[in-house]
């Protein structure tokens, strides 16, 4: 009896050290302890350093006047505006260049991916050469190249390159005409809205009509006509309420029109050209992932090449393309922060750069900046995951 108990005891003692659950618990406790210790150590140091520098922590500084100017802002902003306004200006500028980059790089990327698979040897090789050259050169170098080597040496406003006296390109940026909407333009906008709504309904109806009766109705052509003709008619009937403010040279600079800053132009070009190579590769791999039998079957059913592409290849390719496309968009948004090196007033430049130097609130500003990027990333991935669910394979295998 006694010896048996002792055996049990020994096994019990031995097994506590070898017990997976116990060891896991100890390991986690140690990690947690180290983490808490590190956090305490760092916050203590931050507190000490900030008190020594005489900086009060907290977010009160956001409502104080910022006292610096920003070269481009989509909202009203002056040096008397608050830090919160500066933050908003930065966020909007980041979103602006990201949206421009996403739209253009998607178009160029799909184009590249498709022509890389073209049976035309020359065009396919050209696309391949473009892809291999551009994606193996750092984006930052490309941004600087466009900004300092191409846009900066352009002639001044007086000798600006011009395209039909409407668009001017000089070292101050790109000058384009600004549309001026009169009040009557509202009617055109409303008509356009209803025309789009109507054509969407028409397409929806024609689909149901086709599944019910098998007869096709040329919904796309009719809706195109609707969207073009109706607003145009309203536009002329209300007396063409749209004028253009054309940039003109006055003195040493242009007045009127919209000025696209060279920083924005360089960043936009570089982001578009660079990201398009990656998107092109995803599109290519997506199209190549569609089984050849699918295309052959569609051709055997008598679909024309274009219908084969639209009904068979693209829907299946999109399933493969969408997930990497999402992460590429996220990368583009994050890459737009490289704006800081050429001085485009994006979130990092305005807020984590100028505002940080002005206010000295390093901890809060870095935290806000990162939180904004995290939010944008999260929103884009939510949106695109929703789209991904829509195109993903439904049902079983």
């Amino acid at each position, binding site marked *: 009896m006694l010896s048996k108990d002792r055996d049990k005891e020994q096994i019990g003692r031995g097994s506590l050290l070898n017990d997976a659950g116990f060891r896991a618990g100890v390991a*986690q406790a140690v990690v947690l302890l180290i983490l808490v210790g590190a956090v305490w150590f760092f916050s203590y140091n931050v507190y000490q350093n900030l008190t020594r520098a005489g900086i009060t922590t907290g977010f009160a500084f956001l409502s104080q006047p910022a006292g610096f100017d920003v070269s481009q802002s989509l909202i009203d902003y002056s040096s008397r505006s608050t830090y919160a306004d500066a933050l908003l200006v930065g966020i909007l500028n980041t979103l602006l260049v990201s949206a421009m980059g996403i739209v253009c790089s998607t178009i160029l990327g799909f184009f590249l991916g498709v022509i890389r698979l073209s049976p035309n040897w020359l065009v396919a090789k050209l696309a391949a050469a473009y892809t291999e050259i551009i994606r193996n050169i750092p984006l930052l170098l490309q941004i600087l190249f466009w900004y300092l080597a191409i846009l900066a040496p352009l002639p001044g406003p007086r000798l600006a390159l011009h395209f039909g006296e409407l668009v001017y390109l000089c070292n101050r940026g790109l000058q384009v005409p600004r549309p001026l909407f009169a009040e009557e333009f509202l009617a055109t906008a409303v008509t356009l809205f209803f025309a789009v709504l109507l054509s969407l309904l028409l397409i929806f109806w024609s689909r149901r009509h086709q599944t019910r009766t098998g007869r096709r109705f040329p919904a796309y052509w009719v809706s195109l006509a609707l969207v073009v003709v109706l607003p145009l008619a309203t536009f002329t009937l209300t007396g063409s309420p749209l004028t253009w403010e054309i940039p003109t040279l006055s003195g040493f600079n242009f007045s009127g029109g919209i000025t696209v800053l060279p920083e924005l132009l360089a960043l936009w070009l570089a982001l578009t050209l660079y990201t398009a190579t990656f998107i092109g590769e995803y599109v290519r791999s997506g199209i190549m992932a569609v089984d050849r039998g699918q295309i052959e079957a569609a051709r055997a059913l008598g679909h024309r090449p274009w219908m084969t592409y639209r009904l068979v290849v693209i829907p299946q390719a999109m399933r493969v393309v969408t997930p990497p496309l999402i992460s590429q968009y996220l990368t583009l948004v994050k890459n737009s922060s490289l704006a800081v090196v050429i001085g485009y007033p994006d979130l990092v430049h305005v807020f984590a750069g100028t505002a940080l130097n002005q206010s000295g609130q390093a901890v809060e500003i*870095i935290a806000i*900046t990162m939180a904004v990027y995290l939010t944008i990333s999260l929103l884009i991935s939510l949106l695109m995951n929703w789209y991904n669910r829509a195109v993903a394979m439904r049902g079983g295998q």
Partner: protein
Amino acid sequence: MIREWKPKPAQPSPILETGFGGWLAKNLFSSIGNSCLTLLGIAFLLWALPPFLRWAIFDANWGGDSRSACDAAIEGVKTGACWVFIKVRAGVFLYGFYPEPERWRVDFIFVLLAFALLQVLVPTLLHPTRRQFALGLVAAGSAAALFGLIPGGVVLLYFFLPFLLAWLAGWISGPAGRGGGAELAVPLRVALVLGGGGVAYLLIISFFGREGALAIALFVALLAGLLLTTRRMAAATWRWILLGTLYPLLAYFFLLGGVFGLPLVETHFWGGLSLTLVVAGSGMITALPIGILLALGRRSRLPVINTLCVSFIEFVRGVPLVSVLFMASVMFPLLLPENVNFDKLLRALVGIAFFYAAYMAEVIRGGLQAIPKGQYEAAEALGWTYWKMMGLIILPQALRLVIPGLANNFLSLLKDTTLVAVIGLLDLLGIAKAAMADVQWLGFTKEAYIFAGLVFWIFCFAISRYSVYLERKYHTSYQ
């Protein structure tokens, strides 16, 4: 009468099916649309290529050694690029502001790297032991000829250490590969490593003085640690291990100096291509192990570790590298006590390592998930511990699966080293920008960027080709 059947002679194949004409018809002019595309392509090439080639090569100015050579050429006929700028500034582009008499150290470290990489990256070329011996001798000989006897000796040691270690590890672990260092308890091993290093440190200090003691102690501790944690392994494996451990140690002491009579060169003198390679290399070496740990943590069933790893990875992947570098340069000093100050380069390296570790972790997680469950279960059924299972069964298979993903990450890491220019380090791009600002050489922006771009392109293209080669190599081994 017998009529002999004679086959008609074969007709020549249609002209549009064979030869150059056939190739043209099939690949360039198969339809009207295709012909239009081809013509468009040709027009584009004619529009873009000749002016660029004229600017970059034919009308470019290659000779001379000062600004006046370029100006004279522009006055005359040669209106193209002026590569003299690159030629004159080559030293700065390669070494930054590293003092000129010490630049041989940078050369030495990269020559050693070239030989070491040749050895591990192209194992099929140099498989037999004899050829490896020959390579070691060639490397040591050329190092001795280029840099002197002592560097030659270092190279000789570096190249013959794998053989020595393989023999020693085999000897320690006994003929059956059992027993030996790896069987000892972990605390004992740690104590032996620390003790070995400490004893070496004290011995050097008492006999030779403080100089170089730390380097030698680290070296001894490294060797002891390697021998005590690993078992019988082939010399080829030892080469990889030395490249990841001993080489960085050597490079660190050689580049920084301050030991063995090498003058100290502080990191703010470093720059140019060598700094780019230092940042990229140390980023790769540190990010991969951290990434492996994070991936294991993310797959772990322990809630605390899992949560920590998931939140770290997701946080880092949601923010741009620029903001991480800003944090490293602005917030890091705030996190530390007043008198503690980290080197700017080190801060950037830490930022890059942890940033890329998160990305590598996601790639590796993909590989871990692709390993069949039976592999885990078999290892567990054999009673193997977690680390043994991961190290010997799961990770070797998982890492092999994710080679393309890892190579992609290495590639973007190499490209993203340019971002250290944001916090004021002068890597190749930063130095190019600084060289342009030189009042003597204003207006050579295009040349500087095209040169820097070409250098980056060569490295990135080499990495991507190598990853394709590896992928093929390991793919065939699975068939």
